């Protein structure tokens, strides 16, 4: 008995390369396919240190708050990929955090139905650390027309940003909101139109955080980043798939 527990513990700690050896803790029917898409044949391990925070159910499937927190792996991170297994467009974002930024980000997303939400963190030793949580939802978030589609307000305010710095016990937090319809392209006769790139830059022009966003990010995105050096000046730069670029001092 003792031996079998020891083996079990051992096997949990060794990253798997062949998927069949590891069971998806969220029992998602699409796990294998998602793994192929986002991780391929790389080594991976399900790792509770990669935290995916979300409510148990999507009260509004067009605005589901998610927080991805990989602070426990800070300093070792190459990139973080977040996705929703059962969304028609699964990829949510890929995030490249600089060591000077806390690898934690909060934003809101659209979901089409109840689904596993995942974050896979690639560390410098070439192992993916996969975290996730299940979200219950009535559905329809990706095929609901954006509010902007019925209201021309966004046309004259596209890319307008509001931001605020909040001092924290250590460092500080930036929260910013940008006016953008973030159309998925899945609604009849409304082409996809969404922000693809986000960069938070230090005063010296260095990219502290680079993110590639996909269509499931909610309309008028509100994004929260935590920086370690609250005293420094930062700016944010965005680019959408129409080639529009927006930049603002934070």
């Amino acid at each position, binding site marked *: 008995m003792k031996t079998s527990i020891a083996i079990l513990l051992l096997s949990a700690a060794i990253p798997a390369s062949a998927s069949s050896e590891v069971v998806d803790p969220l029992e998602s029917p699409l796990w294998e396919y998602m793994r192929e898409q986002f991780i391929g044949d790389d080594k991976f391990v399900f790792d509770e240190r990669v935290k995916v925070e979300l*409510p*148990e159910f999507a*009260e509004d499937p067009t605005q589901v*708050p998610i*927080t991805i927190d990989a602070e426990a792996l800070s300093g070792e991170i190459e990139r973080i990929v977040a996705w929703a297994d059962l969304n028609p467009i699964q990829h949510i974002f890929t995030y490249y955090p600089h060591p000077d930024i806390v690898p934690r980000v909060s934003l809101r997303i659209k979901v089409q139905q109840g689904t596993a939400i995942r974050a896979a963190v690639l560390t410098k030793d070439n192992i993916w650390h996969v975290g996730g949580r299940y979200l219950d939802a*009535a559905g329809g978030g990706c095929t609901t027309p954006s509010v902007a589609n019925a209201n021309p307000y966004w046309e004259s305010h596209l890319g307008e940003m509001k931001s605020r710095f*909040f001092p924290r016990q250590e460092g500080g*937090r930036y929260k910013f909101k940008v006016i953008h319809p973030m159309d998925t392209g899945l609604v009849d006769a409304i082409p996809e139109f969404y922000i693809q790139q986000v960069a938070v830059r230090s005063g010296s022009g260095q990219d502290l955080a680079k993110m590639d966003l996909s269509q499931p990010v909610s309309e008028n995105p509100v994004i929260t980043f935590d920086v370690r050096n609250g005293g420094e000046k930062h700016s944010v730069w965005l680019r959408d798939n129409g080639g529009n670029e927006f930049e603002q001092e934070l």
Partner: protein
Amino acid sequence: MNIKKALVLGLFLSCQSVIAAPLAYDLQAKKVAENTWIFKGKLEDFSNKNGGNIVNTGFIETEVGVVVIDTGPSLRYGKEMRKAIEQITKKPIKYVFNTHHHPDHFLGNQAFSDIDIYSLPKTKSQLAQHGNAFAENMYRLVGDWMRSTEAQLPTKTIDTTGLKLGSHHLKLMPFTGHTGSDLVVFDEKTGVLFASDMVFYQRALTTPHTPGIQLWRDEISKLKAINYKVLIPGHGPISANTAPLDQMSAYLNWLDNTLIAAAKAGLSMNEVIKLPISDEFTGIKLSRYEFVRTVAHLYPEYEERFF
């Protein structure tokens, strides 16, 4: 008896028990004042088990006919309700009111389709817009209890502030705090206040369509000015004192202050939904569940204020 036979019998019995239990709300009219009864709902959320019976509905028997206040979450409920009313009074049902456009208050309308159904004008347009979606969602939430239920709109809109029915004088008061269009009915003869979902008591309030916490709180103060003898909340136990209104004010204040403080500190939604709920409200059913929903409904507006 051998094992095989026992198994077969066991299967048979278990199947039978499923078939032998038709869905029933088993509504019991409870007299709360002279000529006034209510059907009390459970302090729960919609589920397959309760069939959506989480709401207080009621009726008043006047000399010239019966006034029904809200029709419940399903056709089945509406039918049971009507039957229970007809067991208590032989007087015809004259008026049916939908206090607001939420599914647990109007989806029994089909059972009263031969009678004029009244709502505030805005409630009627809200029902025209959202009624079908609400009905669909109820099928998802409570299942077969909803069989044959369809959203049926009120046939008339309320264009008066009072109704004289025999010796009963009913004040029809429009409020907005819960959904933007909330009817409160006060019977001046008996002192019974049908507060609809303007008041939740011992069950956390819901906010998907509130025009604002502060506005709702201001309207609770107006309800306090009414000299009622019995208050019937939309959800929760009836009361002869101001405890339900005091609880509403305290909870709305706490909610407002909590969301302001959270937005000022720059918290993300996932941080806000984990904030502690004041000890004062731990006895309120579903307080965490509804707080999480409220954050989804209202926090973006609070965030907006502190950008």
